[in-house]
């Protein structure tokens, strides 16, 4: 089920030309998207490149990344994005890769953590520890491995923006996928803690909780997929929230009200529900 892992290659990196110099009249914001090869990550890459960001795109699949990068660079007409094949579960490689990217981009203003995997156990009486572990390793520990050093950089720079893609699935522990719920709940709590630490250092931490978005991962969803939105709509919502330096958003926004209700369903009822 897991894709083969592309080794992080020094040669690929050193071939990139430096991005065009930022000047006061042509400022450049620089960002990293972790988990950019498809879905919300790829849509955000397209959206932010259009806004003038210079971006490092990270994902496991080098091929997918390369074709996304060449597509974006062709559309924008300049070297706005570059590919860094990477598996977030290779935690020990992260600090050096982060430094490499910051040097390549000429600074860092934004980090978006989108990487996530979803392996439903396939029934409310089924358990799969290997899958659960992988979900925690990628969705939660991967986020901590990246965002801890990023937070450290941003807090001393007293500037920056962190965006984490959580899920409505993190708002309640449900019968369908305990491992996924836990990974996203943990991520939301971790991001909240970062926000509480970093707001005083002028760093914005945005938690995004998507509902159903038309991505590969949607196939893992069980039951009806209500209010499904295209990835472009999710990317647009996230970009708007980033500009306003919001703290927590749902996309589509109706999920805020749905989840408000779901969060308040008393346990004695929730225990009997089958979703």
């Amino acid at each position, binding site marked *: 089920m897991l894709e083969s892992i592309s080794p992080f290659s020094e040669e690929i990196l050193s071939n990139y030309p430096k991005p065009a110099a930022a000047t006061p009249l042509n400022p450049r914001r620089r960002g990293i998207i972790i988990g950019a090869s498809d879905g919300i990550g790829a849509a955000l890459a397209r959206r932010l490149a259009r806004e003038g960001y210079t971006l490092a795109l990270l994902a496991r699949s080098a091929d997918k990344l390369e074709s996304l990068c060449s597509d974006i660079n062709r559309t924008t007409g300049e070297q706005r994005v570059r590919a860094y094949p990477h598996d977030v579960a290779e935690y020990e490689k992260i*600090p050096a890769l982060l430094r490499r990217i910051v040097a390549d981009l000429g600074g860092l203003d934004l980090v978006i953590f989108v990487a996530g995997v979803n392996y439903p156990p396939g029934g409310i009486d089924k358990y799969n520890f290997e899958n659960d572990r992988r979900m925690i390793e990628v969705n939660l520990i991967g986020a901590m491995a990246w965002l801890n050093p990023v937070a450290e950089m941003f807090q001393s720079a007293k500037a920056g923006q962190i965006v984490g893609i959580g899920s409505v699935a993190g708002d309640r522990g449900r019968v369908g996928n305990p491992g996924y719920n836990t990974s996203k709940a943990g991520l939301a709590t971790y991001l909240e803690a970062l926000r509480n630490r970093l707001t005083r250092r002028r760093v914005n931490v945005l938690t995004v909780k998507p509902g159903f978005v038309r991505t590969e991962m949607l196939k893992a969803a069980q039951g009806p997929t209500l209010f499904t939105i295209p990835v472009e709509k999710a990317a647009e919502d996230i970009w708007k929230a980033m500009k306003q330096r919001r703290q927590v958003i749902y996309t589509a926004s109706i999920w805020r009200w749905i989840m408000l209700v779901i969060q308040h369903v008393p346990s004695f009822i929730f225990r009997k529900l089958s979703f």
Partner: protein
Amino acid sequence: MEANMPLTLNNFTQLENFGHSLRAPSFRFKPTRVAEICEIFQLAEREGLTVTVRGAGRSYNDAALNGGGIILDLSAMNNILDWDPATGLVRCEPGVTLEQLWQRVEPEGWWPPVVSGTMRTTLGGCLSANIHGKNNFRMGTIGEHVTKFTALLPTGTEITCTPQENADLFYSMISGLGMLGVITSVTMQMKHIESGLLEVHAWPVHDLHEHLAFLLENAPKHDYIVGWLDTMNGGKSLGRGQIHAADYLHGRQDPNPQQTMKLNNQVLPPRIFGVFPKSILYLFMMPFANNLGWWGVSTAKYVASLRKHTFRQSHAAFHFLLDYVPNWELSYGRGGLIQYQSFLPSETAEDAWREMLTMSLQRGMPSYLGVTKRHRPDKFLLTHALDGFSLALDFKVTDKNRAALSKMLKEFDRIALNAGGRFYFAKNSETSAEAAREFLGEETIQKFKELKKRCDPGNLLESDLFRRVFG
């Protein structure tokens, strides 16, 4: 710093240019000894990072910024190593500021021969940009008063440069923007003064033609000359303003030099009229930092300047105009400011600046500052000076005007280059590689690149400016 220094992420710092219009996060190190600089170079090589030397960070552009790389902040290497009041020779570490320097030498009858409009600059930075003052036409740039400096190359080699020894490096590291090596000590000749005061003359000039003709004619008669140009009014009065010229006092002209040379006669007062603290003055300037407000300020200033007069002023008060209002640059607001300075030959300056100033008024993006100076050429490799004048303009940057301002300054570049003009690497932030090639000439660029290869074969020294202009 410890001997075995790890490159940790907690020295990641957001640094800005003087005009607060650029931000670049970098890993900042603040060494106090030359040996530590060596270690930082080794570290940079290991990590594949580039290094930029930074002093006071008073460049208006990206000269001391290195986004994502290492900043070698030399401001803590700020000891005056030797000072001989008998000869006026001083030897300093590179982080010594002009403020430290003049406060040390002035009470004993000496003054730095060349100073910038702010005293917060460091000597290392002054040499790297090869700064000039209001006496450029007479005394040249600061480099012409350096008798010797030592430098550390990224290879770890320490060198000594004088106009005779390593002359090619002497004339290229001064003006070399810190891209060839790190200056580790500077020996300079101070200028003897016989009074703590200057005699200052002020005259009004009524248009651009008169303005430049006045500078040309009167510069040879004075020790310093500088013009203020009213950038907010066009038409017939375009280029009007006020000229200030200053002369040293000699012999009996100052009846009490012991008194006037005392330090407390020089330092700028922290309060206006003895009551109003200047540290918050910039907040009161903010409401005027728009076209209408500044038109009012400029017009009032011009009317006030119509009276010809002569007065005496301390050296510090005459030179360090930019330090009068602390943090004045913050009054430009969130987008900060950029400076655009062009150097033009005497023959072409008037037409070119008429075109630029008219364009800026027509497009509703007037400069809020106009300062003119008289210049002469010098022998340094990346020189900005020529036989002619310079005009420095300050533009407010906002999210709305960025694109239009960028377009206008590209047109300014074209006008200046067609008129045989040059630009200054401590000031202009938008000068492109093509524009630099055009005014420096292919040969100069090749020579600089050859020296760079010789001094820094690993390309460890790189700034955002270097990548913009020479990359």
